[in-house]
């Protein structure tokens, strides 16, 4: 009977995967799966350039982010736990920051007339072009590398560090060689692969900071699909992209399965000896990282109140909060804010429902989902959703679907961590007392993993607030979200409005993340 219940669960989980992920993915890719289409795309010079650019910037961004994040993780173990929490909360904020805000931040800080680039002109290189794309990707992914490595360092037994230190006479190198590298290397490989995946399929960052000369394949998927209506070329480009992403996903999966289980409530051992210069160096590294992660976001806020050349202004906010029709965006600013909040709430609702189901019923199914989603880019899925459901479902539903798909990996991860906390003893006790299926879930699992639900909901909302690519592909103006409007205001060079929209969006996601930062820290 138990087997039957689980079978039914797995069947529904499988059905959800097919309708939400696999069918759209296949449909998104199918038109390009012909030699003619692939040949046509690959013979284009600009596609070859985009391929090489995607590969180069992703390799460099991943290497830099992993190196800096890894060093920051080791530095984190040397400072007080309170200070470490603050840094990790900041890192979470930048990791989860909507891409359009990050792009705005880099422009505000390093771009033409940027706060820092005015003072130090060479920093302009970080505000646009190749440098801008890599800098923004590094910004995004330092937190990822830092947290993956920090999590593995938490698993290092303190006795091991003490033993190596005693037997090596307190020298630094043996500790690094015998402890840090062996423990951290799966995390470093995993974070390199994951960062590479994110950067390779990046859309918003190259679209805005890179410009035509520095476009990724994902940008061309959009270009083919939306501008040229050449669905075959879009799908063929997506197929080429998929091949690289799939290889990186395999590498990531191999490394990830070697990571220790997620640490809950443990603090990392100080793997480096507590000498003064080590501590000073650690603090310097962390201050630099914290500055790199926060300054762009702060610049957005500052610039939202500045009219270029005219000083203080609130004009940007007036435009964002205006109930009147806005030519640049095709609807009113207020409506856009409403859309953004509506999609976020609905995404949380749908993602939590589907996510609980997937997280609860199928370990293997949920894993397959998480892995598949890495290799299939958001635009590929969005194309598929439009192909299959475009004629059946209204755009808002498709947008909620796309946001849900984007949020599911984080939602499932968070819920599964919560379910793990139920523990085998409680699960056994419930089973012998007769609890099964829905009763077991509602009375035991859900209440005991309540805090994971808060975290999952927050993450789903933040993902939805920030989602740009799929929404941009699917939405018509009346369903635009703040992310798209930031881009639209950039397009008409209304910088205060663009920064004001960024600040509003930042306020929404940051307040949610900071509110839950203590719970989220355990999740990271």
């Amino acid at each position, binding site marked *: 009977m138990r087997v039957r219940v689980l079978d039914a669960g797995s069947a529904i989980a499988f059905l959800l995967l097919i309708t939400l992920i696999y069918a759209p993915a296949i449909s998104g890719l199918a038109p390009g799966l012909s030699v003619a289409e692939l040949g046509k795309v690959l013979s284009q010079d600009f596609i070859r350039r985009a391929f090489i650019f995607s590969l180069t910037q992703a390799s460099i961004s991943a290497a830099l982010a992993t190196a800096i994040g890894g060093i920051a993780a080791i530095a984190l173990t040397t400072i007080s736990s309170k200070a470490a929490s603050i840094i990790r909360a900041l890192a979470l904020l930048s990791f989860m920051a909507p891409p359009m805000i990050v792009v705005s931040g880099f422009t505000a800080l390093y771009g033409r007339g940027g706060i820092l680039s005015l003072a130090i002109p060479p920093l302009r290189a970080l505000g646009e072009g190749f440098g801008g794309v890599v800098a923004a990707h590094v910004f995004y992914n330092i937190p990822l590398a830092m947290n993956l490595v920090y999590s593995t360092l938490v698993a290092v037994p303190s006795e091991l560090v003490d033993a190596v230190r005693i037997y090596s006479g307190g020298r630094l190198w043996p500790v690094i060689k015998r402890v840090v590298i062996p423990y951290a290397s799966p995390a470093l490989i995993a974070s390199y692969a994951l960062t590479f995946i994110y950067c390779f399929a990046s859309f918003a960052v190259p679209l805005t900071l890179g410009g035509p000369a520095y476009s990724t394949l994902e940008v061309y998927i959009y270009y083919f699909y939306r501008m040229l209506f050449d669905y075959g070329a879009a799908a063929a480009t997506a197929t080429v992209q998929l091949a690289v992403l799939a290889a990186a996903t395999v590498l990531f999966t191999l490394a990830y399965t070697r990571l220790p289980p997620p640490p809950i409530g443990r603090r990392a051992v100080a793997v480096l000896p507590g000498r003064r210069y080590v501590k000073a160096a650690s603090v310097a590294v962390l201050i630099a990282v914290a500055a790199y992660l926060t300054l762009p976001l702060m610049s957005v806020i500052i610039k939202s109140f500045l009219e270029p050349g005219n000083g203080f202004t609130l004009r940007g906010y007036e435009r964002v909060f205006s109930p009147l029709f806005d030519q640049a965006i095709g609807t009113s600013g207020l409506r856009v804010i409403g859309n953004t909040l509506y999609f976020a709430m609905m995404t949380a609702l749908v993602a939590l429902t589907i996510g609980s189901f997937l997280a609860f019923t199928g370990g293997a199914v949920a894993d397959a989902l998480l892995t598949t989603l890495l290799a299939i880019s958001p635009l590929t899925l969005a194309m598929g959703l439009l192909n299959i459901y475009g004629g059946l479902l209204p755009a808002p539903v498709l947008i909620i679907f796309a946001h849900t798909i984007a949020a599911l990996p984080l939602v499932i991860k968070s819920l599964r961590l919560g379910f793990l906390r139920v523990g085998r*003893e409680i699960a*056994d006790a419930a089973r*012998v007392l*007769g*609890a*099964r299926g829905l009763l077991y879930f509602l009375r035991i699992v859900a209440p005991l993993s309540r805090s994971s639900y808060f975290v999952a909901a927050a993450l789903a909302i933040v993902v939805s607030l920030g989602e740009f690519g799929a929404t941009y592909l699917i939405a018509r103006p009346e369903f635009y979200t703040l992310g798209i409007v930031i881009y639209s205001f950039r397009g008409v060079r209304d910088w205060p409005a663009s920064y004001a929209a960024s600040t509003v969006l930042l306020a929404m996601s940051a307040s949610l993340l900071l509110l839950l930062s203590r719970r989220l820290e355990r999740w990271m």
Partner: protein
Amino acid sequence: MGHEVELANVTKRFGGFTALRNISLRVPASSLTVVLGPSGAGKTTLLRIIAGLERPDEGRVLIDGVDVTDKPPWVRGAVMVFQRPALFPHMTAAENIAFGLEAMGVGRDEAVARVREVADLLRIRHLLSKLPDELSGGEAQRVALARALVLEPRILLLDEPLSNLDLSLREELRAEIRRIQRELKMTMLYVTHDQDEALELADYLAIIYGGELVEWGDTVSVYESPSSVRAARVLGHNILSPDSARKIGISADAAIAVPPHRVVLVDGDKCLVTRVARRRNYGIVEVMCSDTQLRAAVGYDVMDSVEVGDRVGVEVRGYSVLKRP
């Protein structure tokens, strides 16, 4: 009324490790059977198989003659109490106790009445509104016991339920479990590695060693005259080869087991006292009688009258022949 449990040729493997090997055992209705064995012997696995939390790789589980091997836990009528109370941390004691009734679809009024009844039986009425956090170890284990008993299970499985409690509490709850078993005439299977617990509680004693059932029978005969070497070892008896036995005047064609309490120190000079150790409530005196080492369990008065190096005589007042390995 009690119900009978039977295991027929049960084998359970975890990967390459065989946790239970070809176990056949019939637990009589309304009896309290204790499964005794060292850590890792397979005791808990045995209970989990009866409860339906594990499925045997081979063999069958029968309750009242009905094959339940493929049945899920909740239809077997066998409820398990674990080593740790495993109370649901977000529910009060009363809600914990009522949980199984809720799962069975028992109405609210009846559930409340039954919770009160079982709370009275276990003397925990005053704890009903407390959360697990607010209970002591002993109180929590009583609640866990109540949570199982309220379902009026056909079989109650207890997996070292007292091993995390301190001594006096353990003795108190042990007496309670025995009282309840007699009052309700319930079939209970109780796993422990503690011999005191086993001897006090058991109507029947099953000894498991290395995944095999090596001895089974009523408590007194198993304890006083085991017939397997491994059982005698688990029980801590003296094991003497036929040669060694002969040297203390016992002729047997196989090894024998001599329970330490059947070795009596008497006047004489054939044996040398090699060790004297004080235990709770009794003493251990080890003697060497021409190459044969014997351990005697004696009262404090006897123990205090000898020292290492003294010469004494011994009499063996009971032994069994070990016919099986």
